[in-house]
């Protein structure tokens, strides 16, 4: 085999890229796409969790559910809290897009607070149950599914607080703000997953009763 180096023209006058964006700007950096990939795999995690739930539920039928079906006393306020938090976080992201760091930092921290309230309510519901994680396969799944979601809310709260801190430190402006958009993306995902969890745990038992 002959050893050749590549043969290419040494001038190419028409090569021009124009002005290119620099760095992580307008949520077009790699980070936002990385979060999209993370959200994809996390969504699959919940799909497999709910698959496990339905696998048991379809095999065993009504007898598998506890005598007292999961109610809406806590779950509806929890849902309201999460939806509100999503709106608040959206306001925060819009704030930084308009260059208003204070609005953004306060809204992100507010979203995190609503998330903490959600966790507190969920913990109250857990304490309210007359079964534990080791009672039977329903109870194991109930605590594991809601627990996984709760862990994701806690993860989202930590992200929101970190980004709120950075915003308050004046690190971002209307264009350089990718972390805000990334955290907001994750937070909305945690909310959307709650819709699936809520429907599965709290709504379907009443449908098939």
């Amino acid at each position: 085999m002959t050893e050749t180096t590549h043969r290419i023209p040494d001038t190419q006058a028409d090569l021009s890229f124009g002005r290119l964006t620099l760095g992580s700007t307008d949520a077009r950096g790699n980070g936002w796409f990385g979060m999209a990939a993370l959200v994809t795999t996390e969504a699959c995690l919940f799909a497999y969790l709910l698959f496990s739930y339905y696998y048991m539920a379809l095999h065993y039928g009504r007898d598998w559910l506890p005598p007292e079906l999961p109610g809406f006393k806590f779950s509806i306020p929890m849902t309201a809290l999460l939806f509100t938090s999503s709106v608040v976080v959206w306001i925060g992201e819009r704030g930084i897009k308009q260059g208003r760091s204070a609005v953004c930092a306060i809204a992100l921290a507010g979203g995190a607070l609503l998330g903490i309230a959600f966790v507190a309510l969920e913990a109250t519901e857990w304490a309210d149950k007359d079964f534990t994680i080791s009672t039977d396969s329903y109870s194991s799944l109930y605590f594991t599914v809601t627990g996984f979601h709760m862990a994701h809310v806690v993860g989202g709260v930590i992200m929101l607080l970190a980004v709120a801190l950075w915003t308050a430190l004046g690190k971002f402006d209307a264009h350089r703000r990718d972390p805000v958009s990334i955290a907001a993306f994750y937070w909305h995902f945690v909310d959307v997953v709650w819709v699936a969890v809520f429907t599965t745990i709290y709504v379907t038992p009443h449908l098939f009763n």
Partner: protein
Amino acid sequence: MPELPARYTREPAIEPVTPDLRERLDRIWEGGSGLRGWFGTVDHKILGIRYIITAFVFLLLGGIEALAMRVQLAGPDQTFLTPEQYNELFSMHGITMIFLYALPILSGFSIFLFPLLIGARDMAFPRLNAFSWWVFLFSGLFIYASFFAGAVPNAGWFNYPPYALKQFNPGMNMDFYALGMILLGISTTTGSINFVITFLRLRAPGMSFNRTPVILWGTTTISVGNLLAVPAVSLAFFLLWLDRQYGTHFYGVEDGGKPLLWQHLFWLFAHPWVYIIVLPAMGMVSDILPVFCRRPLVGYSLVVLATVATMILGFGVWVHHMFATGIPFLSLSYFSGASFIITIPSAVSVFAWVATIWWGRPVIKTAFLYASSFIVMFVIAGVSGVMTASVPADLQLHDTYFVLAHLHYTIVGINLFGVLAGLYFWFPKMTGRMLDERLGRIAFWCVFLGFNLAFLPMHWTGLMGMPRRIYTYPDAAGWGWLNMLTTVGSFVMAAGILLVLINVAQGRWFGRRAAPNPWDAPTLEWAVSSPPPAYNFAVQPVVAGRHPLWEGRLGGEATGRSSLDHGPVLDRGKEQLVTSMLDGEPLLVSKVAEDSLWPFFATLAMTGFFAALLYHWTWTAAALGIVTLLCGLFWNWPRASLGQVREVRDD
């Protein structure tokens, strides 16, 4: 959207490569030295080679475990191993080869090659890349630490409950495996995110989807597969751990658990995994064969479509591992049918490779020997696979040595042979030195003949009824001579692997210096020196076709000419170009992370967290969990040098 301020944009100068530019880039891209540099490096070339070495060490460990088992099985009624030792060895052999060797070795090649093949300077997330390697290394150490705790996983690599539950398996054996696998899953997931985003965003201008080398398609496809499949197994192992340690009822038969739930979750992951550990190797062969056949790959588009189709279909066949569990007839029919259909895309690739050789003028080098014998192994693995896809045949063959023969033709044939082809092909690029061809050929024939001598007779052993996972067998069974053949073959193959190691050591220190393009190959990694400089490409390459270095010889394939020595200069700190997903049009200049110790610290804390979980040290676990999060916080702290904050530092 409001107009971007000028300070957030730049028009890169279009210039030729000069020695002055190279010197400047050398200074910018030079990594740290000493211990700090070793623990903090984010260079994809260093990390790729570390991945390969680590995975190869696991290959050797798994191989030694296999040899011990082959000594025990060489004849009837042997007592070389106790039954418990045998259980531990076959479990660790499977875990090691399937999880700690098969994918990580392919990831290693891909991490080394991705930026070089697409004309980039590093991965999309260089620190995450370092993190993936650290976590992979530590998860392997975690699982192997079970040897020192005297509690080695012993229920097989797919460890079915109820046997894997605490009631029947009270030691910590399965907890090492369960938590270690969750740790490894984190490494696989972060690695996959990196591959997908790198493929989608960092291809050189002009490198549209249909101009991308096949290995990139293979690795990207399986990375998407990983994102969809890995959560299933992480969840399966987490639930197993809960069952074992916190008395939940997922898999036990009492209190409403379902052992089959484990099998579903496990195979939902593990069948796609079979394709995940072969498709990148198939991609490597698709890129290597044309170089030695001196012509482009026949049916590039079909091979790429077949790769993607195989992955998609791979998600619809998991129940064929469960034919013998008594599931409904309809289910059997569907999954059997799907398993037959998956042979079609596989056959497309085989015919494309055969046609490439047929219409080419093969140059017989060691890499070609491995790549072409890969095709033969693939066909044998495929034929025995089709046989087991048929439900009535599978009911006979299930859990016999026939299945072992099939899966070893799959994993050794379609993974290891591809890997060795890749090793002989890319070694000059990695080290700047050539491997000795004569020793390479001797090693090849040892591996090839040893492998076939070991595993071809296994089909007959299985047909004669020898079940898997038995530590010995009576003389009257009549399996003795076949097992002796397998044992002899496995030692011949091991000798071949030893020769490969000698070959590599000799080449690394005494091999002939390699030119930039010793094989006269067509893709971008061969346009830079061997080994490549830290910054890979001095100017951003712009490609006009699928074979930038073969332009002018193929006639009409490319649109215009590729530009490799003349192009946009990105030299204000570590920078690389981000392009649009489909067509590879320039979008933005991305800042590349400097060396960082945070990935290492995060891994250390996280591994400690898992170890604390293993021993139920709740407060230690909580503390280490918080430390892990803090590492993440500092790691992601927005930096001006990375263009993440309003302050612009652009010099």
